[in-house]
């Protein structure tokens, strides 16, 4: 069992990295990687929301949707669950830990519309993962996304000083860079064979 959990974890973090291998969540990826500080804040918030969102979706999927044969409503339900949960977390955090809210609160609203947050419960449902396997996938994806954000942020902070041709400045050169890092991440494929 541990072996499978570890496999899922490593695979979702490196081999099937959501940004560099599946090209998901790019809007947030390019939005918050201008500065290291925002990238790190986003990483923490994202991983936490991903774990809780995946657990909630797993419970609802396995105990309500499967018995009632409602699997085809996955996309709608999962979006609703994550949105409601994030909204509630936003309100509670504001009251309970204002300091944390001011540090990370702004990222919560961004996360609701993120596609990785939706993709993880969908993969969990598709693969019929157990609760722990779902959590492993969520943690792996969250850390993988954090890794991508931090790599990109550190490069883009250096990029500020580089002499980039005018037509490539800003987003275009960032896309070029992402492509190059994605190529590097291809090196992970085949690392684990089942």
């Amino acid at each position, binding site marked *: 069992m541990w072996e499978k959990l570890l496999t899922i974890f490593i695979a979702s973090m490196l081999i099937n990295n959501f940004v560099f291998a599946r090209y998901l969540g790019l809007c947030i990826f390019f939005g918050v990687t201008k500065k290291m500080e925002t990238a790190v804040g986003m990483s923490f918030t994202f991983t936490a929301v991903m774990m809780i969102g995946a657990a909630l979706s797993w419970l609802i999927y396995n105990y309500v949707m499967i018995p*009632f044969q*409602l699997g*085809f*409503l996955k996309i709608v*339900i999962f979006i609703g669950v994550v949105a409601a949960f994030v909204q509630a977390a936003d309100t509670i955090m504001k009251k309970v830990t204002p300091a944390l809210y001011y540090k990370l609160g702004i990222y919560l609203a961004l996360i609701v519309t993120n596609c990785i947050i939706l993709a993880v419960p969908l993969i969990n449902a598709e693969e019929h993962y157990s609760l722990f396997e779902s959590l492993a996938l969520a943690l792996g994806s969250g850390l993988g996304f954090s890794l991508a954000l931090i790599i990109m942020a550190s490069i883009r902070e250096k990029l500020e000083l580089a*002499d980039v041709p005018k037509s490539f400045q800003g987003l275009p050169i960032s896309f070029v860079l992402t492509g190059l890092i994605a190529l590097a991440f291809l090196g992970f494929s085949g690392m684990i064979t089942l």
Partner: protein
Amino acid sequence: MFEQITQTLLAALSHLLYASLNKLVPLAGVGGSVEAMETVPPQIVVNGLIFLGLLGVVFGIALAIVASKFVVKVDPKVEQVRETLPGANCGACGFAGCMGYAEAVVGNPDVAPNLCAPGKAPVANKIAQITGKAAAAVEPKIARVFCQGGRSRSQRKFLYTGVMDCTAAVLAAGGDKSCEFGCLGYATCMRACPFDAITMSGDSLPVISKEKCTACGKCVAACPKQVIELAQMSKSVVISCHSRDKGVDVKKKCQVGCIACGMCVRTCPVDAIKIDNNLARIDHGKCITCGLCVKKCPTNAIHDYLAPRLRAFIDPAKCAGIDVCAKVCPVNAISGDLRAVHAVDQGKCIGCGMCEARCPKKAITLVQASTAPEKPAAKEMVSA
């Protein structure tokens, strides 16, 4: 009664769905976990509707409870203050952005209402009104560049071809400029300015726009050579040099550096200039911005931002001949007998404004040199 109605309604609904779905909707491969089937049992559709409805109701109620239980009361004043603030989030007030300052100024009685540098006096007054605090006057400030040695007027130690940024250039033996106190000219301050107030001149020196600069201090923090300082806007005469090299060395490196010759010290009518560490500095508390030192400086290291200078003009109708103006004038431009109307020699006047400030009758005004009404003044003199 109620149950009966719901039961009949449900039955009717499911019948309707059954009838319509069976005929109209192609049902193979709905997707997800519904296996490809010829028909979808209406039970699933009804379940789905009930489930989604319930989910919506549950989430709605849960969010309502959370919202009411964890409500955070926001002082409406905070919102008012935040709307008043410029919203540039420059951090010149010392708080984390405009929202941080708004909360601090409303919540903490010790936080002054005039800390917003970009907002200047109007914003300070409004915040004071909202928070009920006493509004102290905001002395308008501006960022000043303490270097005039552009590329054409200063020497370079070596050819720098690295990253075009001062913070990067300074890593290479302190930058390529011979003078280690001067501006490197790679525009780090220009990029740091959130208000686009800095442009680079053709001679690679930053030029600060008087209208756009809000004295937020971002450029001061960004400059690795500490060439930029915040200064009072009204103190327009500035020794634009930071070099503490000896005069001989300054001469070799730069044409417009301060060589600490002491001319300005001797010229200053109010003893506001002192030489310290081979560099003349103006004590802005004493300085009257008369501009005499600007003319005397042999290397033109002193810059007068108040150009073109104005000229003093005495309104003969108001002048009571008290002679105060003649006494304060640092260049003896005002003459006239006691208890007679005085006149300003426009050729001598340097527009320092000292007489204007001193005249108890408010008879003196500063006007543009070109439009100074000299002729009418002369006529009045004759008639008087």
